[in-house]
């Protein structure tokens, strides 16, 4: 019924033979819908943004960075400034001289976290300690990245006997107890670094401290092993891939293959592993400082702040709790962010 009713209407439609002629090239062109081309980075960032935990972690990391690197410049106290009669204050308490100044009508910036037993503002010491810990974490990770990735890439790409020897060497390094080596190196390096720091051009070493430099050296010497193994395994897989064979068939040399194919394809893994290396380095730095092998006074680090506070733990628990919480939070957010990066840029590593 409906069909017969529709027929006259169909006849009324303004259709002619022209409407059935093949489409021209320009007409076809207008129908092609091109999706925005997504490259690796855009795709990874999109996945990262969707990951709530990673984004919250990133927010906290930014807060910590601001806390450690920017805030101390605006703080009215410095980390080594001792205020007389203001020793061992609790939060928002004022010392004797400071109370006199307030009575005289001066405004005195409050000690948000109190002061330590030498009358130093604890808030700014926390900031500086975080700065030291973060710097150690980042510099050590970069050392590990540069040494480990280069070593692993060379071993994996060369292969054969060279690879065997290089990887046995890393196995040997792996068996060395790291704490022992750090302690030994700190002791043996310290006098050398101190004498080196006196020569012009190396004054900065004085400030950083012999222990810290020994720690960098130990990290550079020992902790690249894991990175080297990961890079090697990636390079081993990638260099057997068909697109590398294709590049060789096109006449590409080793340099080009490493630059254009191997590096670009394992950069995701490298970034992820480096990010996850940062909390590990912070953790090591903290417990070494706690053992007294870290930065030299008056420079604080989160670990050394905790050591100093242990003696007065019962009376002034906040001096121990605050650096401990900061260590935990920093390590946690870096680990969570690293996990998020891994999920976004290197989904294969997830398992």
């Amino acid at each position: 019924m409906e069909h017969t009713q529709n027929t006259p209407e169909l006849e009324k439609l303004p259709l002619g033979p022209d409407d059935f002629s093949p489409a021209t090239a320009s007409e076809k062109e207008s129908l092609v819908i091109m999706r925005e081309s997504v490259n690796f980075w855009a795709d990874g960032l999109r996945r990262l943004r969707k990951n709530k935990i990673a984004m919250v972690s990133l927010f906290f990391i930014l807060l910590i960075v601001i806390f450690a690197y920017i805030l101390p410049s605006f703080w009215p106290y410095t980390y080594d400034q001792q205020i007389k009669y203001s020793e061992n204050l609790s939060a928002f308490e004022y010392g004797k001289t400071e109370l006199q100044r307030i009575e005289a009508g001066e405004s005195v910036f409050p000690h948000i976290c109190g002061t330590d037993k030498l009358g130093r503002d604890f808030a700014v010491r926390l900031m500086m300690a975080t700065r030291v810990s973060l710097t150690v974490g980042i510099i050590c990770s970069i050392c590990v990245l540069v040494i480990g990735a280069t070593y692993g890439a060379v071993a994996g790409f060369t292969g054969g006997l060279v690879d065997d020897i290089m990887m046995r060497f890393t196995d040997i390094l792996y068996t060395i107890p790291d704490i022992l080596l750090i302690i030994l190196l700190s002791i043996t390096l310290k006098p050398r670094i101190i004498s080196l720091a006196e020569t012009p051009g190396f004054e900065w070493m004085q400030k950083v401290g012999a222990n810290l430099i020994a720690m960098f050296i130990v990290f550079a010497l020992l902790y690249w092993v894991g990175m080297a193994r990961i890079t090697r395994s990636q390079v081993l897989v990638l260099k057997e891939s068909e697109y590398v064979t294709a590049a060789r068939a096109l006449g590409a040399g080793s340099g080009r293959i490493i630059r254009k194919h191997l590096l670009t394809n394992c950069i995701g893994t490298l970034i992820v592993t480096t990010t996850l290396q940062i909390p590990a380095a912070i953790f090591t730095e903290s417990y070494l400082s706690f053992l007294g092998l870290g930065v030299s006074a008056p420079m604080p680090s989160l670990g050394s702040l905790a050591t100093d506070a242990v003696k007065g733990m019962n009376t002034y628990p906040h001096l121990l709790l605050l650096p401990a919480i900061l260590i935990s939070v920093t390590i946690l957010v870096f680990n969570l962010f690293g996990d998020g990066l891994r999920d976004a840029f290197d989904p294969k590593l997830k398992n």
Partner: protein
Amino acid sequence: MSGERNLIEIQHLQQYFPAGGRGQKRRWVQAVDDVSFFIRKGETLGLVGESGCGKTTVGRTMLRLYEPTDGRILYDGEVIYDSGRCPLQNADGSPVLDENGSPKCGVKTAVDMLPFRRKMQIVFQDPYASLDPRMTIGDIVGESIDIHKLCSSKQERRERIISLLERVGLNSEHANRYPHEFSGGQRQRVGIARALAVRPEFIVCDEPVSALDVSIQAQVVNMFEDLQREMGLTYLFIAHDLSVVKHISNRIGVMYLGKLVELADSFELIAHSVHPYTRSLISAIPVADPQVARASKRIPLQGDVPSPLNPPSGCRFRTRCPYADEQCAAEVPVFREIGPGHWAACHHLDRVEGEMTPLLPVTMG
């Protein structure tokens, strides 16, 4: 179509891969052993055989993507590899003798392949693995242009890439995209465009259609034929599907466990195969006509392919061959010309020939 000149020739090519062990106990995968053939300019040589028989290795070794363990490779009359251990041959295939009457070997040669990379190219089997996921299609196709510095300006490079993409049925829009945005058939076209970018004379097609579905297979095979006509290309077409190979090839070689067992003109091979293995393969091609299919006899093979780590002595096919006897276990059969342009390696060609039930005429594609 096929000229007289041999574009590429391999003689006694051998490719062993180390498989663990050291010193005396070192074990080798005998992927390719004593394979010789030539390809004339402008022709297509098909290479068939089951999985793991060394077809792909032959193709890649010819391009020296693997360094051969023995043998000689000639391209356009020029030696590009010589192990220095295999006897020189006269034009008729007889060995060149030195003053003492013993066979003379060539000089150990391994030329720099860079100039030859522009003449010999390869299309890979797996279009998903053979394109770098971090490079755009334009950069993948343009890589050889950069390596050989074929274009002087960016504009010229871009135009050349676009013309290559258009040649294989893609368009300029695709140049800025990444491989994961393409289907298998499109990716294989990108792989072909990459191989064509250097304007090669010879292309090894390493199972280029095996990973594609059947409708796309036909498109790609037709494209290979069109390209051959237009650009005068020479192909080594590797596949395990005899029906595809017989469609595109002028001549077909059959491999079994690293050895070439038979080589002949396509029609000759399909209609008058002499080697028991080839006949078994041919009898397995499905025939579209049910009457013919019912009348033709399948020749099933018993057992599995032996391991190339430890191949059978003598003739490698003897463990599965219905004609095998003591001679097959003792002697390696010589790969010899049994008719004009028809080579085979078997001790019992006379017996196989005698028992041959004529295969029904196979229509050539």
